[in-house]
């Protein structure tokens, strides 16, 4: 137990609250979903240490199970060479030497046998015992795994160490072993109270008195409520505490004293208590850190939120639940006494060890069994323990993919035909998002004159944006940036049309919300049933039988009743114009030019402009999907990025701005026109804004662009549909487009799109180095031209944005797929939105954070492989200046590879330094067009060469 005890002399309650707040899930209200590293607070530790520590505290699995790794080995997803590479690293990490002989073989071979054959101790506890018992009882049944009597005897004489059970952390653990689960009562009470308190407006009425904080509100509710059978006298105690004006802290102390938790046990005890319901506790901690996310009171102020209040209420409930449960099973409720009654036996590993030797022998290895070598072998079983084996498995798994990508890039370098000298006909700037990889490829396959770029989807313009129908401005930029400007959308046509639409839309929305709310009441419910019920059944039939057509029909009805007016952005600030927030509305010419020059230089688009440059943000629309926002643009703060793209075009097309850009060394010719728009990644729609502004002279070029985009979005829909079993692999692009449109409008569709699922790598550099490669929608593509970046200043900006955002996405997917029950939020099917802030499983459960099973089911859990076309020196410079990038790379939460811009030499960051990577000269599969590659199956595809990317 000693390792669990407090390591500081501070106040244990304060310490525990601080420590827990750092570990608890950091996910805000779900309306805006930002991907982040689930174990962010462990990022200061090396990856393997961090995940093991974090997972242990949260009761999760840090890596996939060994059974999964072995399956991947069997399927060829991990090859023998990959495992050898990972084993060598594991040996080095543990400071072991390969040359040592164990049981008559080299240590690495012994470790390999352990990796391949040792029972997984994190498997259900009885598995090993059952298996061994079964083998003893019925040896012939499993003839090829029969345990040799001699082996069993040998192991009995020098047994490997036993595994002690995890010590009890709090009363609940001990009482659970006695057959009673106190958390059923405690959590039921706590979830009802917290849910009502944190509600953002879903209930018809607020809980009274929320302005006093959770502690006071909950005490009052408990005091006024009916007496509870399972929490005897809690209302009397609550009343007493109210009368004595006890503070939250006093209740915590009273409960800890009452339950017999000694000072030196308190920190551990409280941490475990807070981590028992991590979602709700985490939401309190999160809102305490970000008060802006707390619910709003009537007068516009925010409800005060404190984690300490949550703990106090929890402890008050525990104080009543525990003694009752303890009395029921006849044990002491005093923690200091109770925790000593732990009589759980340690688990013997004898049989598992014998089985391991047996399996080793089956592979044809000659074992030299002596007591001394057995002792050493068992010692290795502790060094190369479960966690180390899984870490090794993960590295082998990642290495396999790394080899494929780097070999592919090296193939592209040697086989790339020279791109014609002809000037480009169209340039497209997309978000770096890996989902855009396929549509960019589809555009490029239509000819060498089509060129694409990738830039973070806010396109360098950090703004607070207010759309025509928004109530207030919201930030459209990465969460780490605070915008300095607001930009508003205005109706273009005469005020009467706009006003009529506003009032009609307002009336419609008011009616919708009135029906929804009144249908919960007695009289309103009857009225709603009789009036709306028959219409509802028509809606049900139409929306379920013909999801796409009925959605389109509804949309056109809406457009008829309240047509959307033409709008314009207030992008340039001519005179003093300040928003309510105090921020200026719109940019000055110089501010705009600075930002645009930054954008164009970052992506390396500073000369050879095409007649049309298309800037496309992205977003996603889907129904019945609480995780809808998770599919939007992370670089726009979890929102749809169309506004930023439109703003770029709006600004660049102004003569004054172009003039200012010329002063900054970027000469955009008069004959070039920018258009901005939005690519919807769910239904593959492309909406272009402000087309009416386009000069006549541009129109021929624009018509060509339209043809390219129309065909590209169909090809994109087809490539996406490869992953959806509902559409056959030989479908036409037109069918695929219809299919994805149906998905986006279908009420019963938990997978409108797969989002960032399958993301695996990030290529920073000129598009030339990856053009022509089929990367299977798994690569973030960031445009960066090292040749115009003298002091790595641009690289620094790029990596400072891309590193944390990419790592956040990749790690959230990693954790949610490795342990979907703890880090993720399980299957979507029983999800229940609560308080407009999050989801629960079924009628009441913890607030579920992370990603649902349906979003990660085809993901390959790996750390993001960032390949940068820059010298190792430039990268080291950036790492020296950017602390967060350095932390991610040095602690190996991402994998970093440098590709030399001129020589193409590859260096992989590993164990504290860059190491040369020698790519194999592989022959990639060659295809004319992407669809020929795509129709080869629904599995992940290795990089292939698409010839049309250049021809």
């Amino acid at each position, binding site marked *: 137990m000693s390792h669990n005890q407090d390591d500081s002399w501070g106040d244990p309650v304060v310490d525990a609250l601080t420590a827990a707040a750092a570990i608890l899930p950091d996910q805000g209200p779900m309306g805006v979903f930002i991907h982040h590293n689930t174990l962010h607070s462990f990022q200061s530790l090396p990856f393997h240490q961090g995940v093991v520590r974090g997972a242990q505290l949260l009761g999760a699995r840090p890596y996939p199970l060994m059974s999964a790794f072995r399956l991947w080995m069997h399927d060829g997803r991990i090859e023998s060479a990959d495992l050898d590479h990972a084993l060598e690293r594991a040996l080095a990490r543990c400071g072991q030497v390969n040359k040592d002989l164990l049981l008559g073989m080299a240590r690495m071979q012994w470790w390999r046998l352990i990796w391949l054959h040792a029972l997984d101790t994190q498997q259900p506890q009885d598995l090993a015992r059952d298996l061994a018992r079964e083998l003893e009882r019925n040896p012939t049944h499993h003839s090829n795994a029969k345990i040799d009597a001699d082996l069993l005897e040998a192991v009995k004489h020098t047994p490997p160490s036993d595994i002690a059970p995890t010590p009890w952390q709090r009363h609940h653990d001990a009482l659970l072993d006695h057959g009673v689960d106190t958390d059923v009562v405690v959590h039921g009470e706590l979830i009802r109270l917290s849910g009502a308190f944190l509600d953002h407006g879903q209930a018809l009425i607020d809980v009274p008195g929320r302005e006093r904080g959770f502690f006071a509100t909950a005490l009052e509710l408990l005091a006024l409520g009916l007496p509870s059978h399972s929490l005897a006298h809690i209302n009397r105690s609550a009343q007493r505490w109210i009368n004595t004006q006890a503070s939250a802290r006093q209740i915590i102390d009273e409960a800890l004293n009452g339950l017999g938790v000694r000072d030196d046990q308190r920190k551990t005890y409280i941490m475990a208590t807070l981590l028992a319901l991590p979602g709700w506790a985490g939401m309190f901690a999160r809102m305490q850190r970000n008060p802006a996310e707390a619910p709003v009171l009537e007068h516009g102020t925010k409800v005060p939120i404190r984690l300490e209040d949550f703990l106090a209420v929890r402890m008050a409930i525990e104080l009543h639940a525990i003694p009752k449960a303890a009395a029921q099973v006849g044990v002491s409720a005093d923690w200091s006494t109770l925790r000593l009654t732990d009589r759980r036996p340690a688990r013997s590993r004898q049989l598992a060890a014998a089985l391991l030797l047996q399996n080793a022998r089956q592979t044809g290895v000659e074992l030299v069994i002596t007591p001394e070598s057995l002792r050493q072998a068992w010692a290795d079983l502790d060094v190369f323990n479960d966690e180390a084996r899984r870490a090794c498995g993960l590295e082998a798994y990642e290495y396999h993919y790394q080899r494929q990508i780097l070999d592919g890039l090296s193939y592209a370098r040697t086989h790339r035909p020279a791109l014609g000298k002809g000037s480009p006909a169209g340039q497209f700037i997309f978000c770096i998002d890996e989902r855009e990889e396929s549509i960019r490829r589809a555009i490029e396959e239509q000819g060498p004159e089509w060129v694409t770029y990738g830039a973070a989807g806010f396109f360098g313009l950090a703004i607070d944006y207010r759309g025509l129908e928004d109530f207030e401005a919201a930030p459209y930029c990465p969460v780490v940036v605070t915008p300095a400007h607001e930009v508003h959308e205005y109706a273009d046509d005469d005020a009467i049309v706009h006003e009529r639409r506003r009032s009609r839309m307002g009336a419609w929305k008011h009616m919708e919300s009135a029906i929804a709310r009144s249908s919960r009441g007695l009289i309103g419910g009857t009225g709603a049933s009789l009036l709306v019920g028959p219409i*509802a059944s028509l809606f*049900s039939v139409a929306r379920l039988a013909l999801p796409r057509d009925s959605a389109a029909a509804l949309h056109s009805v809406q457009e008829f009743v309240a047509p959307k007016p033409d709008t314009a952005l207030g992008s340039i600030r001519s005179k003093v114009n300040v928003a309510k927030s105090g921020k200026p509305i719109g940019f000055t010419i110089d501010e705009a030019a600075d930002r645009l020059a930054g954008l164009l230089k970052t992506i390396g688009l500073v000369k050879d402009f095409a007649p049309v440059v298309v800037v496309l943000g992205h977003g996603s629309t889907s129904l019945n999907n609480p995780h809808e926002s998770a599919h939007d643009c992370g670089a726009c703060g979890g929102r749809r990025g169309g506004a930023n793209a439109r703003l770029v075009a709006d600004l660049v097309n102004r003569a004054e701005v172009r003039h200012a850009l010329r002063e900054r060394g970027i000469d955009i010719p008069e004959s070039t026109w920018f258009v901005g728009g939005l690519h919807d990644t769910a239904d593959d729609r492309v909406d272009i804004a402000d087309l009416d502004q386009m000069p006549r002279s541009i129109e021929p070029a624009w018509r060509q662009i339209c043809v390219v985009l129309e065909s590209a979005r169909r090809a994109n829909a087809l490539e996406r549909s490869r992953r959806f079993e509902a559409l056959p692999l030989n479908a036409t692009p037109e069918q695929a487009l219809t299919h994805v449109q149906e998905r986006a409008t279908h009420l019963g569709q938990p997978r409108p799109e797969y989002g960032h699922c399958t993301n695996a790598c990030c290529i920073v550099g000129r598009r030339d180095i990856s053009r022509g490669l089929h990367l299977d929608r798994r690569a973030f593509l960031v445009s960066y031209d090292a040749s115009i970046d003298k002091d790595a200043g641009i690289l620094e900006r790029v990596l400072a944005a891309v590193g944390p955002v990419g790592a956040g996405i990749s790690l959230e997917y990693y954790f949610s797929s490795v342990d979907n029950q703890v880090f993720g939020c399980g299957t979507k099917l029983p999800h229940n*939105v609560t308080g407009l802030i999050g989801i629960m499983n079924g*009628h009441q459960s913890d607030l579920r954070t992370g990603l649902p099973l349906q979003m990660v089911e085809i993901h390959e859990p790996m750390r993001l492989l960032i390949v940068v076309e820059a010298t190792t020196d430039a990268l080291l410079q950036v790492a020296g200046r950017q602390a967060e990038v350095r932390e991610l790379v040095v602690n190996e939460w991402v994998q970093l590879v440098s590709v030399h811009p001129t020589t193409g030499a590859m260096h992989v960051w590993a164990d504290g330094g860059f190491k040369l990577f020698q790519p194999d000269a592989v022959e990639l599969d060659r295809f004319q067009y992407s669809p020929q590659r795509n129709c080869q199956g629904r599995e992940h595809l290795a990089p292939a060469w698409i010839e049309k990317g250049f021809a």
Partner: protein
Amino acid sequence: MNDIPWQAWAAWLSILAPLAGSLALGMVALLAPNIPVERSVTRCMQACLALALASTVAVGIGNGLAGNTGDIFFGDWVIAGEYKIPLTLRIDWLGILFATMSALLALLVARFSRTYLHRDPGFFRFFFMMGVFATGAQLVAFAGALDLMFAGWEAVGLASTLFIGFFHDRPEPIRSSIRALSTYRLCDSGFLLAVVAAHEWLHSTTLASLDGISSLPTWQATVIAALLMVSAMGKSAQLPFSGWLSRATEGPTPSSALFYGGISIHLGLFLLLRTWSVIDHSPIVEGVGIGIGLLTALYAASIARVQPDAKGALAHATLAQVGIIFAEIAAGWTTIALVHLLCHASLRVWQYLRAPNILHDAHRIGEHAHSGGSWLRVWVPSIDRRLCAMALSRWRLDEATDALVAPVLRLSRFLARATRIKP
């Protein structure tokens, strides 16, 4: 059998088609090495449900053209001495309307679930139980005798508990499922006893003989009416048997919609409408029924006000209306009640199916000004606070039930120990 009208055979078809689908799927699953693929499961089940819907509609058309078909006797199912279970269908507008609605909703939910449950490990199980449920609901709607109706009644109850416990790898769904199951068991004993009583006193359980209940002494009629009402209270979650409903939304969204927005929750009301002649004969039961319905409505509405989660609020809002309809029936307004019931089920299924959309809607409609309180809060804040506190703890109904059941459980544990023979 020549004089049996075709409508009766169509009714049988609508009852048996879903079951046939489930049985066919079950046989394939048992005999084939692998569980059938999703596509064939949904095709089979949707075809059977569509057949059930079509034949129900056909029955309706036949009824409309040729007038009420009435009770059709197909012989006895079970004969044991004097005891007989007659195979009798009653084909009238009440049954046809209810059967049409349940077949339609089942088909819609099956369509919804085809994509919603894609790749779920319980896919097969889900559609298998859909067939069992649909057969049960059709049988309740068309049965012309209490025993036959009870068979359908039990099928629906079984499906309901299995859907609540659908995600059986977590403990909470299992706990909720067991609570629903035990409530059903307790209340269904009322149905069984009513069957026994009808046999004993009326020598028949057909609805036709129940219509002639006026020949019985009042107390006997009251006993039968009360027993039937207890059974209806369980299925329709009336007080004091409401606790299970608030925990019933543990299953996948579509099954919650079908059961607790659509059919199952209204099935108790249908039983009352079906056996209205019995209830009507007992003023005491009517009076108690009105009281229970209204109390339930108040109880549920008070909770629906404060419930912050989408499905919980919907469950209690549904219960409030079911309580009102319960009272309407008990008060004798059967036609109004039937219209109310059908409209209400349509509304709630739609709302349940869209429950996960609430964030999208909130975003689209915009943050509405927080309604804050209510007139009660302005006028009598102390009562409002107390009401909030009571409603948030759901009036401690579950705990009260547990406390009531605790001595029984203790006794049974004691008896179990006492009768155990030590080896």
